[in-house]
């Protein structure tokens, strides 16, 4: 065999490799070429009514988010010129894929802040389209879609609207009726106006349900107080760690007060539940008992759980009876609940903002919001008319209680900080790590809070 045949053979082999590659691209490439033609082919002509336009809605790949795919046929029937494509990623990869799509020039049109970062992150990174003109041009009115005004304001910065609220979780109390019955206690109220329902009363009742035993299967705690994210918790007691301007300037605090005596005292009250009153579990116990399900309440070992209303979604499967109640009064007359309002956002990279806005409006209609509750398996709508259907969604829980708790939460609620403050995922990571020694009783708040204060300052400046 000489050089020439050798060369020929290698060339053949290479050719074979390349043909395989070409063949592969042939079978898959057809579709993508089609997308390009419709997706980005007619830039600048977004207002055109007859031209086919494809918009992309980027969301998390989980049943409670991807149900929107089932709404597309109805929408496309109403809007024959708009095609909707749902692009999705698992929760853990949501941010990295979104950023890669944007960097790669394939920005989705519609999305929400479903990853680590919240609205403020997107806003401050200049990722969002200002919807104000679109809204004016379209004549969109929040009340037509039964969106409460105070919720519309959450995603408005300096009179510019950047997001339309679509779903709303709140902080509420879930209680284990079996444990209340066993301790012969009356159930906590669902009415936020019941003045007897205070933090102190909650602690008293919790004491009567708490059993600490060497046998882990017998141990149970009266209350698990996971109100909002860690940095927001002082607010429940009336202490404000972030300066007032944070809420009006798009989430960049000019000052923070994590080392102030009020804030430290507020945290102290929470850690007293664990270390002094001993009515709440340590974080280690919680995680051990919660296991893969993420919440020890699910295991039936917690009397009262203050947490997000998403815990309700699995309620139909719990092997014990549950009720919902108001978050007790803790010293803040204005704020007792956290709101987790998710907005629909249009990204700056969108080539068809008008069509994207049509899709958003469609998702906000009462009919679609009602349908979404069932399809998503219990997503709470922002549309107050559709919300009536949501209140009835849970077996064995009085819809009147759910309604009272939700309405009270909206009245006494504050939007969760994780949506409102810039660089929040870093703040949150830092909090989880720095507070850990306090949660295990290895360090005191007085040692840790000044460190947190200086680190928050540093993160915000980035």
């Amino acid at each position: 065999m000489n050089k020439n045949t050798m060369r020929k053979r290698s060339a053949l082999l290479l050719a074979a490799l390349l043909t395989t590659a070409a063949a592969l691209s042939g079978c898959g490439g057809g579709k993508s070429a089609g997308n390009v033609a419709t997706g980005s082919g007619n830039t600048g002509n977004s207002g055109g009514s007859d031209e086919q336009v494809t918009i992309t809605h980027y969301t998390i790949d989980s049943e409670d988010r991807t149900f929107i795919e089932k709404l597309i046929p109805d929408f496309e029937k109403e809007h024959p010129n708009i095609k909707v494509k749902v692009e999705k990623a698992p929760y853990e990869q949501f941010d990295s894929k979104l950023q890669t799509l944007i960097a790669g020039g394939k920005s989705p049109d519609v999305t929400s802040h479903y990853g680590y970062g919240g609205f403020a992150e997107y806003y401050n990174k200049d990722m969002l389209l200002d919807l104000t003109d679109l809204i004016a041009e379209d004549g969109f009115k929040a009340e037509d879609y039964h969106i409460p005004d105070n919720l519309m304001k959450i995603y408005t910065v300096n009179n510019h609207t950047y997001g339309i609220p679509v779903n709303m979780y709140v902080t509420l109390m879930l209680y284990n009726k079996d444990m209340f019955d066993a301790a012969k206690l009356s159930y906590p109220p669902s009415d936020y106006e019941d003045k007897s329902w205070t933090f102190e009363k909650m602690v008293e009742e919790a004491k009567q349900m708490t059993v600490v035993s060497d046998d882990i299967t017998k141990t149970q705690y009266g209350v698990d107080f996971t109100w909002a994210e860690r940095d927001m918790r002082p607010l429940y007691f009336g202490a404000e760690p972030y300066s007032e301007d944070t809420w009006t300037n798009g989430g960049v605090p000019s000052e923070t007060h994590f080392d102030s005596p009020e804030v430290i005292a507020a945290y102290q009250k929470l850690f007293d539940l664990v270390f002094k009153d001993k009515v709440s579990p340590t974080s280690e116990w919680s995680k051990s008992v919660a296991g893969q399900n993420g919440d020890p309440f699910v295991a039936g070992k917690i009397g009262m759980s203050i947490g997000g209303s998403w815990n309700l979604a699995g309620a139909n499967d719990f092997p014990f009876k549950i009720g919902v109640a108001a978050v007790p009064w803790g010293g803040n007359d204005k704020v007792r609940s956290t709101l987790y309002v998710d907005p629909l956002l249009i990204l700056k990279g969108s080539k068809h903002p008008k069509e994207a806005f049509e899709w958003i409006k469609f998702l906000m209609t009462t009919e679609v919001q009602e349908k979404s509750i069932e399809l998503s398996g219990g997503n709470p709508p922002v549309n107050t008319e559709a919300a009536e259907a949501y209140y009835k969604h849970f077996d064995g829980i009085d819809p009147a209680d759910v309604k009272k708790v939700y309405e009270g939460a909206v009245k006494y609620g504050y939007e969760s900080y994780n949506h409102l403050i810039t660089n929040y995922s870093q703040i949150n990571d830092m909090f989880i790590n720095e507070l850990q020694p306090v949660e295990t009783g290895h360090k005191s708040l007085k040692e840790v809070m000044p460190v947190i204060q200086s680190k928050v300052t540093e993160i915000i400046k980035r």
Partner: protein
Amino acid sequence: MSIVKAASSRAPSSLAHRRKADPVKIASFAALLITTFLMLLPLFFMVSTSLKSKREMLKFPPTFLPESWAWSNYTEIFDTLQFGTLYKNSLIIGVLTVIGTLLSSALVAYGFARYRGRGNQLWFILLLSTMMLPYPAIMIPQFVLFSKMQWIDTFLPLVVPAFFGSAYNIFLLRQFFSTLPEELFDAGRIDGCGELRMWRTIALPLSAPALATVAIFAFIYSWNDLLTPVLYLSSSDKFTLPVGMASLTSSRFRIPPWHLLMVASVLAMVPIVTLFAIAQKQFVEGIVLTGIK
């Protein structure tokens, strides 16, 4: 061809030396039993969890064995996910990746191992260095590249690079090719074999255990890869198994159906275990180089 035949006569040595009740072997066997028990814990856990009911998953403390065996989970997975489609896509990608990796990596590794060409060292260092940059660092530019090639939402980014060699497997095979005795190739050259022919008739058959290893590694890597398909695929009918499985645990607001995830994991194991069971024979019956010496 004659060389290989001569070389492939199996070594009878280990059989001939089998004594009765060799204490070393008894100790080995005992040690293996214990480690195997530990290594198979995941399997036990997977199967047991896959047969629990949704309600039983909420129990504390968790049950060791299912209280009632929920075999219906194994049909439910097909209603929850497009399991058949996911499986098919993963298989297509996996098989193509293995073919591509084997073919190209064996060629390239041979080039690095057998020829003292100019630049050998330099290229080899470059090859190694491609493995030293963490994936998150090249994720964005790589996406830009594939996006310019119009490869988004196709299997191409997942399959084609394999046909141009994977650094890991090239390095691995290079090490194996380097251990082949030079005499074999001298003999081949005397027989008038061309270089490509020697690669095919001498190097490849003699490296069967290594090639089997590469096949297994390449398949498992592709089979369990989550990051690349998540990034490059956007239509649900092109999703792979890991992407589908990740969707089960992606909601922050629902308790994930862990039992179904375990069903999917158990079913996902089938092709890998089968492949391994077939390939592992290569490690026993691989060609032993006795005939040549």
